[in-house]
């Protein structure tokens, strides 16, 4: 691997990310499975970085998952998107930050389609007025939440209490990145670092002291595939795609997987569990899995957040070996407690996968 | 023990011949005796083994045939014709025929006459215990001619013996000559002899000159006729009174011994095996294995004469001569599995070697059997056949089956259709939308079992069509439909025959035009099915038929044959070109053939060949009749 070659490509794919005043839009999957990640993101941007980031309770799903499951027409999803844009404009923002990669891709695609077919944009404008009596303005900047963390990675590093380093050996942690397919595969120029060697997560890892590991199936999809996961009969596809990635990364012995897509950390986590429970194979050391974390969780860890505040307990792959390596202090007894120490029981142990 | 003694009219009063050596033995007979004993044991054991190896039914068939008058006559005819007189060679190459018959028949007569002499003059010596094995052979050494008591009968035998000795010697002289200048005897290629062949050959060459030497040296004592006595005088002139003859007899015996000892390992084994093979063949026993059972007799019956080398279409390239039948059989004898397979696969299966073989060895059949040992067990899956042959055919009395190759040359289908329409023949087209293969290519490849599946499927289709005549335009199909389909009640004809009948019966009008036509005999049609007459008869009505330099069963494969499994395109092209040259001997304007494969091959050969004649047209038989 020739690092300079990558640097050259990264330097060519730098997108403009605004400095402040963001309109934040949540992700369906992230809210459902990683609510703490979004909370951490807002906390970091607002309270640690001191940025203005606004969220309205009126925004909804962008409809992306329904759209990519082919259940709603393109016009529907575009009108919903237009409505979100209208909310942004109504609240006086023009920097649109979305938490979801599917949304991000869809917004990019929609704006590109409108650019190419203005008559379609007009039609959507009309739809929006008819149905919601709203007018929309296209955002000046469309960015993904990970772009924002990327932009402030060095500020975060400056505030960090620890690095992505194995405290026992002093070696940097080996980190594998997984970029959501819709981040830059459709529009390479819309993502930091482009489609082939995206830099958005790599930049964070480098800034926070970790070592990024490139492996052959890095670019391969996690296998979500929308309908391919929602319908049980199709899940073999989804599972097998993740399996392929793990088989490919195994020789590199990564300590951690970092993701910027809502679904991917869920799949990279849960499919490890399924592979372990149904075949006995695990990819981490001694029967453990490889933790697959969101970038917010990783940022939170280096900034000294409590792992249980970050929601690491909601991953099926136990984060403890990683926390130990990083020298994160945590109270195992508090892992599954509710708010204010409320006892809400804990999950049953797995048969194969070590917790 | 010999009634011949009494049959002869003239008898001498005093003993004409006196047993010169009372013991009837001399040391010099040892080499011969060992040799012949070895050989006789070998062949005896071989015969028993062979007969034990063939199936019980075949064995029964064999014994029965020996007593059936019909086969007895055929056996006698074939034995005399093929083994002794070599009629088949005579027919093709008279000089070569003379050579073979001189050696075979001459030697045979020498042995027979020698034994008669013994029977006549010293009958006791025929007894095996009293030297019956060697005595008649070295008769002239052991006897003393009673001077003054010579009878006409004695002189007559002397004469006959000398005559046949000369006859054999003339054959030997030709053989020696042929070794160096085979072309004079009409052979372009001769076999490469093996070591045993050489030993036997040189011994054979030496046997008769040495016999002449030995007998002429002893002619003083044992008497002789024009040859031996004449030579004897010459020796006296040369060496004076005393002739030291024992070394000659030793040499003669050694050569005989060597010859017989080498015989089982050499091509000369054919002299005896041929007899067995003819008997087995005439009993109608077919080989099931390329080497075992009957085939053993067949492969040992091959004389390695090499006539098949000249017959083989592959002989246009020297490198491919080694794939000729003679070598195939040689390697069969040697059990060299790897070489056998390579040779078996190369052959075009044009059957010309079989047609020309003096002994009638069916090498292509052996090759097929050899291929079967390898290929018959290869997996196949024809589960689709029922659906492929499911279509219901319109009911017509005449059914036309084009076959795979005709489908690749649709001009034939068109021409056949036009001819049939012109003659008012209503017909159904069995494989109009593409049928399955006839099975012959599978058969040729040795996939016999697979072929039977294909045959079954096609047969069902044809029988169910309710036709009474099946017309085929492809000789490959025709051959197998005729031989293997057993379509009772259905007349299977090739379209050359069918069209010829249409012309003969006046249903098809043919206008004769001034066109020089040469007809190429497709292998499967000519040699394969014996159809030579009909296509020529019909073509004769349409134009002027000219001769090819090789025709009928001498015709040479076009090179496109499906028979060969391994011959590559370039080698095939060379064959096509030489075959084309043969057809162009009398400068025809049109080449007509009656096989889609030949048509395609010649069409391509004409345009690709380096021969100067490029304007010659290549036509299908049917096309001639729909001008």
């Amino acid at each position, binding site marked *: *691997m*020739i690092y*300079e*070659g*990558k640097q*050259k*490509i990264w330097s060519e794919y730098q997108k403009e990310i605004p400095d402040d005043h963001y309109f934040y839009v949540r992700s369906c999957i992230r809210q459902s499975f990683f609510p703490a990640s979004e909370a951490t993101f807002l906390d970091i941007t607002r309270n640690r970085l001191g940025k203005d980031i606004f969220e309205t309770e009126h925004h909804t799903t962008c409809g992306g998952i329904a759209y990519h499951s082919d259940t709603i027409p393109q016009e529907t999803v575009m009108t919903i998107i237009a409505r979100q844009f209208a909310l942004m404009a109504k609240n006086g923002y023009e920097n649109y930050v979305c938490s979801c990669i599917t949304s991000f891709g869809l917004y990019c695609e929609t704006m590109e389609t409108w650019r190419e077919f203005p008559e379609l944009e007009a039609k959507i404008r009309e739809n929006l007025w008819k149905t919601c009596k709203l007018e929309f303005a296209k955002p000046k900047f469309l960015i993904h939440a990970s772009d924002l963390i990327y932009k402030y990675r060095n500020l975060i590093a400056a505030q960090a209490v620890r690095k992505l380093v194995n405290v026992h050996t002093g070696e940097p942690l080996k980190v594998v990145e997984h970029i959501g397919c819709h981040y830059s595969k459709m529009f390479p120029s819309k993502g930091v670092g*482009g*489609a*082939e*060697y995206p830099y958005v997560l790599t930049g964070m890892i480098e800034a926070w002291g970790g070592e990024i590991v*490139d*492996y*052959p*199936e*890095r*670019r391969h999809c996690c296998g979500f595939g929308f309908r391919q996961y929602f319908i049980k009969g199709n899940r073999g596809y989804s599972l097998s795609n993740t399996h392929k990635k793990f088989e490919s990364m195994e*020789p*590199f012995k990564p300590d951690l997987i970092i993701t910027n897509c809502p679904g991917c950390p869920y799949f990279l986590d849960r499919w490890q569990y399924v592979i372990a429970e149904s075949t006995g194979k695990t990819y981490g050391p001694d029967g453990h899995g490889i933790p697959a974390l969101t970038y917010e969780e990783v940022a939170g860890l280096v900034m000294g957040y409590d792992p249980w505040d970050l929601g690491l307990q909601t991953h099926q792959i136990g984060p403890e070996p990683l926390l130990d390596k990083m020298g994160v202090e945590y109270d195992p007894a508090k892992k599954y407690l509710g708010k204010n120490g409320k006892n809400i029981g804990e999950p049953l142990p797995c048969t194969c996968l070590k917790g | 023990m010999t009634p011949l003694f009494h049959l002869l009219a003239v008898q001498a009063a005093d003993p004409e011949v006196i047993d010169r050596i009372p013991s009837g033995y001399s040391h010099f007979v040892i080499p011969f005796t060992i040799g012949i004993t070895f050989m006789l044991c070998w062949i005896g054991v071989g015969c028993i083994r062979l007969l034990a190896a063939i199936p019980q039914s075949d064995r029964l068939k064999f014994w029965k045939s020996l007593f059936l008058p019909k086969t007895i006559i055929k056996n006698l005819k074939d034995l005399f014709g093929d083994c002794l007189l070599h009629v088949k060679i005579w027919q093709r190459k008279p000089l070569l025929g003379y050579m073979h018959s001189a050696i075979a028949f001459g030697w045979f007569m020498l042995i027979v006459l020698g034994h008669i002499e013994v029977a006549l003059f010293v009958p006791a010596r025929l007894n095996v215990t009293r030297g019956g094995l060697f005595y008649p052979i070295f008769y002239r050494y052991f006897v003393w001619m009673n001077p003054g008591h010579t009878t006409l009968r004695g002189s007559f035998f002397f004469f006959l013996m000398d005559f046949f000795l000369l006859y054999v010697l003339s054959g030997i002289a030709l053989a020696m000559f042929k070794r160096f200048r085979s072309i004079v005897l009409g052979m372009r290629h001769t076999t490469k002899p093996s070591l045993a062949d050489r030993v036997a050959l040189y011994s054979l060459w030496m046997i008769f000159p040495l016999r002449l030497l030995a007998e002429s040296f002893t002619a003083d004592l044992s008497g002789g006729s024009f040859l031996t006595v004449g030579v004897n005088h010459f020796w006296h002139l040369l060496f004076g009174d005393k002739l030291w003859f024992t070394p000659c007899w030793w040499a003669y015996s050694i050569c005989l011994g060597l010859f017989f000892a080498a015989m089982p390992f050499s091509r000369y084994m054919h002299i005896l095996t041929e007899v067995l093979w003819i008997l087995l063949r005439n009993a109608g026993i077919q080989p099931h294995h390329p080497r075992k059972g009957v085939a053993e007799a067949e492969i040992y019956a091959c004389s390695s004469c090499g006539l098949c080398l000249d017959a083989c279409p592959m002989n246009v390239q020297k490198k491919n001569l080694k794939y000729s039948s003679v070598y195939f059989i040689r390697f069969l004898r040697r059990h060299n599995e790897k070489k056998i397979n390579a040779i078996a696969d190369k052959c075009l299966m044009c059957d010309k070697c079989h047609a020309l073989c003096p002994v009638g060895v069916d090498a292509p059949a052996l090759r097929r059997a050899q291929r079967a040992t390898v290929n018959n067990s290869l997996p196949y899956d024809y589960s689709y056949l029922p659906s492929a042959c499911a279509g219901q055919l319109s009911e017509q009395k005449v059914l036309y089956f084009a076959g795979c190759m005709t489908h690749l040359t649709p001009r034939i289908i068109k021409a056949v259709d036009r001819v049939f329409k012109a003659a008012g023949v209503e017909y159904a087209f069995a494989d109009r939308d593409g049928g399955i293969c006839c099975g012959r290519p599978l058969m040729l490849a040795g996939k016999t079992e697979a072929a039977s599946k294909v045959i079954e499927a096609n047969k069902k289709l044809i029988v169910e069509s309710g036709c009474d005549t099946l017309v085929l335009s492809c000789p490959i199909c025709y051959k197998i439909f005729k031989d293997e389909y057993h379509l009772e009640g259905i007349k299977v004809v090739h379209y050359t025959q069918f069209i010829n009948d249409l012309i003969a019966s006046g249903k098809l009008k043919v206008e004769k035009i001034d066109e020089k036509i040469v007809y190429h005999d497709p292998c499967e049609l000519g040699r394969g099915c014996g159809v030579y007459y009909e296509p020529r008869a019909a073509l004769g009505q349409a134009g002027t038929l000219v001769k090819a330099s090789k025709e009928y069963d001498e015709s040479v494969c076009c090179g496109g044959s499906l028979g060969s499994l391994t011959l590559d395109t370039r080698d095939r092209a060379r064959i096509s070109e030489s075959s084309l040259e043969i057809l162009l001997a009398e400068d025809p304007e049109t080449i007509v053939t009656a096989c889609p494969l030949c048509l395609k091959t010649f069409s391509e050969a004409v345009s690709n060949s380096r021969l100067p004649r490029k304007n010659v047209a290549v036509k299908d038989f049917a096309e001639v009749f729909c001008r």
Partner: protein
Amino acid sequence: MKNNILIIGGGPAGLEASAQLQRMGYNVILIEKAPKLGGHLAKWDRLFPDSVPADEVLGGLLRSAEGVKCFTDTDVRAINRLDKSYNVRLTNGITVLSDAVLVASGFDLFDAVKKEEYGYGIYDQVMTNADLEAYFKTGSDKRIENPGRIGFAHCVGSRDEKSGCRSCSKVCCATAVKQAIEIKQAFPKAEVYCFYMDLRLFGRHYEDIYLKAQKEYGVRFIRGRLAEVSENYDGTLQVKAEDTVAGKPLKVTLDLLVLMSGMRPSASGKAIGDLLEMTVEEDGYFAVRSGIAAGQRSPIPGIFLAGAATGPKTLPETLADARAAAMEIDRYLTEIFPDAKNYKQLVRERW
């Protein structure tokens, strides 16, 4: 009076045209921006289809162009159109008054770095056709150490709208086949794969080398564009393509991947084109007066074109093109140029 002719570009086209024009008696000035003459030919080892050493061909070209006034390390600084002639200021300070200008600026090899998914300049074992030629010439390259499996990716930067080039570069297929054979000769035990979209082996003897590559060297041709290259743990490459003939995705581990970088219009040629305000077509190559009837005349009178400046060409085509340009220049300088009175009309009629 001898006409001055400026030839821009000292590659095969420039050299051949110089030699021809000098033979016709013109005063030829040849400039080349590189320190050495020969263009890409000087960097190549052997040439398809018959593996002639490139040096031999170049040597011949240089010999026949002996005596031509030649400036290396020299580029054009400015060009002024006078009445009929061109006043050209060179970077070496010399000014040339030229009656005809031949632009033989050639091509650049596509920068394979731009084809990001192939990882040139990122993955250690990826090289280009030019790198491989350099290896053949010098016998050393740290990427090549008894490779067991070698892949050739055709159409790198050709027939690829994402790389900004829709057209075919014409020479890569034959080059790939040639190089595949050569690498097999160097490493007989290696397995060699060519990933192609269409094998464009159109020239005389080209099909023969294709057949030879298959028959004698066992090179495997896979119809499918290389889609993705990545690096394995041990430094070998994993490449993916579809075998479109089988209709199945395919992967293979390679020890070496050679990218057949295609032809792009040369950057320095473009600079000269800008100075002359020459028309460039969508594909980036110079427009000609007529693609069929006047392929060596630019739309501007007195400016001629030869070689790959007007699109991808094989070496024989380039040489023929250069000879044709020489003829055209001669025709222009004898039929049109001398007639001062009717010059403009003649240009209208005959240019």
